């Protein structure tokens, strides 16, 4: 699929017409199929998305806990803006090679929220085809950014989903462009929230740009290795693949903003409204990020 056609939530899917029910027969299709969702089998350690309590718990207790509390020393504002029940689409700015922002936002909800809830992070389809990543990524709560997946999580299962509308453009961004948000896809995330009738919670993260800065991109190396991009960071490539994890101890600040609500049905059909909301969300995040950078006295101590 050409790259232009696959920004985070807009994978175009050829729809096939169903044979449909004919008049005169008992109506078999309920519009709302939510009550037919499969139940949870207590014997299982994985859920249907492949998320593993055991693997996630282990990584959470060790790696994420260390980074959250001691390395990045995360500071969280506005956690009350994350709803305690029902679905919500968290929308954040994105940065850094092997971005540390997603696990930190997930950990923030787990640590600070009065009702800790699991967060589903949407990732590129790329990971599913990459050996090793393909095995690990779903186990720690990442889901491919397919509109159907997001719809099922938000509307059917009423869960929290985190998207990065900047997508890959955010992670490819160089250090000199830090805290300047890229284009927010084509507003696919807004459509997803409107279709599922859940609020969008904008999230601002400051510190990730300095934690994993990218000084250059080597395009010929990414073509050679088959990686989506080949960044030059303080520790990669000379630190090897693990160098991707070599984060600098920047101070993290995460701010959850007021949610935008879409309760009416069929809003996603209105393309101009979708674009307007997408711009609004981006502007709010950008504004708050700049304000947070302005107030920050030190990159390392906050």
């Amino acid at each position, binding site marked *: 699929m050409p790259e232009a056609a696959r920004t985070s939530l807009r994978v175009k*899917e*050829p729809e096939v017409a169903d044979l449909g029910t004919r008049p005169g*027969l008992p109506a*078999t*299709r309920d519009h709302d199929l939510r009550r037919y969702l499969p139940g949870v089998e207590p014997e299982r350690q*994985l859920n*249907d998305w*492949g998320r593993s309590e055991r693997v996630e718990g282990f990584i959470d207790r060790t790696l994420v806990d260390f980074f959250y509390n001691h390395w990045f020393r995360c500071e969280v504002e506005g956690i009350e803006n994350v709803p305690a029940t029902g679905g919500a689409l968290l929308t954040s700015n994105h940065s850094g090679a092997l971005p540390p922002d997603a696990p930190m936002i997930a950990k923030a909800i787990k640590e600070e929220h009065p009702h800790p809830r699991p967060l589903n992070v949407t990732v590129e389809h790329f990971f*599913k085809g990459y050996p090793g990543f393909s*095995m690990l990524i779903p186990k720690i709560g990442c889901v491919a950014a397919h509109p159907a997946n997001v719809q099922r999580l938000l509307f059917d299962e009423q869960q929290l989903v985190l998207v990065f509308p900047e997508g890959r453009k955010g992670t490819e961004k160089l250090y000199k462009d830090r805290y300047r948000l890229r284009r927010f896809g084509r507003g696919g995330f807004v459509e997803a929230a409107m279709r599922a009738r859940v609020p969008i919670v904008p999230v601002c993260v400051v510190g990730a740009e300095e934690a994993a800065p990218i000084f250059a991109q080597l395009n010929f190396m990414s073509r050679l290795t088959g990686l989506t991009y080949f960044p030059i960071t303080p520790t990669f490539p000379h630190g090897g693949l693990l160098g991707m994890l070599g984060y600098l101890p920047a101070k993290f600040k995460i701010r959850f903003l007021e949610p935008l609500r879409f309760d009416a049905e069929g809003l996603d059909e209105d393309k101009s409204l979708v674009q307007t909301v997408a711009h609004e969300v981006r502007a709010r995040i950008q504004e708050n990020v700049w304000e947070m950078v302005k107030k920050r006295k030190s990159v390392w101590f906050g």
Partner: protein
Amino acid sequence: MTRRVLITGLSTYWGGRLAQALEQDEQVEAIVGVDNRDPTRELERTEFVRVGTQHALLRRIVEAAEIDTVVDSRLVVDSVTTSSRKAHENNVIGTMNILAACADSSVRQFVYKSSAHYYGTAQDDPAFFTESMGRPHPPATGIERDIVEAEASVRDFGEKNPLVSTSILRFANVLGPDVRTSHTTLFSLPVVPTILGFDPRYQFVHEDDVVAALAHAVRHDLSGIFNVAADGVLALTEVIDLLGKQWAPLLPPWGTGLAASALRRLGLRIPPEMLGQLRFGRGLDNRKLKATWFVYKYTSREAVVALAEHMRLHPVLRGAQEPYRYEREVEDFLRWSPHVKNPAYRKQPELSPEETRELERLSDAHADRTGVPRGGSAVEQAEALARAARPREEGPPPADIRAAEAPEDPPADVAPEARPAPVGHYDDLGADEIVSLLDSLESTDLLALRDHERAERARPRILAAIDSVLTRREAAAR
């Protein structure tokens, strides 16, 4: 509403299981099964007709038996079971023929057994396919291409025949104690090979649920496309864990096809569509079928557990049970011979008292006219009836009828050269081909053919087959 059901592919595992399930249903008045192989499961009241997918013959069966429901269970979904050319012939051409036989006929419902291979496996798949989703990429393997093509022709049929409820059931990978698939073969290995670095999501459906879903579609007149997959999507490592086996990442992530062909040398055949599943996996959204009040008996996990339990018990029980073998003569005897008195053995519903009286009255009348004593075998009676029905000048004189009763004795007055074979190039055909053709011939032709055969080569198998067709028609006419 009673049903008259035609099952194509009766001799496949699913056709046989479905026929057995429908036999228990009082709403199903008649079950006719067609296939070009002998049935593999023991059937009570299902009628087996040996015919492939020739649409002209099928159409005659459909019209003659006033079939209102057709279930197509023939689809080949595992490319190791047959060559790709045969699979294509069966899946695509066969489906087209069956649809041609059903169009503009008495058929009011068409149920098509399809497969989740329709969706394929790709990197950018959604985690749960719903029925309205197409595949993100064109099919890459032969089986998938066949399934997409066959389904397209079924959908086309559904659009052109709006009076027919057309339903397509897409089944996930089937597991269970009885059914044999490439996946059960893989899972029965002591060490299950996986692709290095991949832990695909797998959804299964238990064999009993497959049969129940097909029967459900028949009973409830389902219309539309339905995914049939049990609740719960497992990771492959979880599956292997439940089976109590070890997994080994023997297949490399790159050049997997090459490694698979090396494994084929060692005797393990991994078909290409399965390699896709071992890499990316697949999940289905099963809620649409559940919304039609279908209840699954097993979850994916329970289906795996059932297979695990069977695999532990199997070595103990091996050889304890003889596999079923279809014997046409025995089946015909049990279904049609008037000598079968014990109701426990009688394989067809008993005639009502009025029908019995009527039958006796008619046979008495014929016995008087033709001189055949009552109570002779059905074959004798049929012969006598047929001869009585023929114009006098053509048929042998009544005195010769007794001679004709003994099949070893060709009647003296029938000159072989006087009777041309009713089927062109008859003598070039093999016995199997002739037997499969018999159902399509008229009774008078059959009589002539029998005489011809008796005079020429007298193959007992063909003679017996002609006789049984005649007997059956005779009984049907009553």
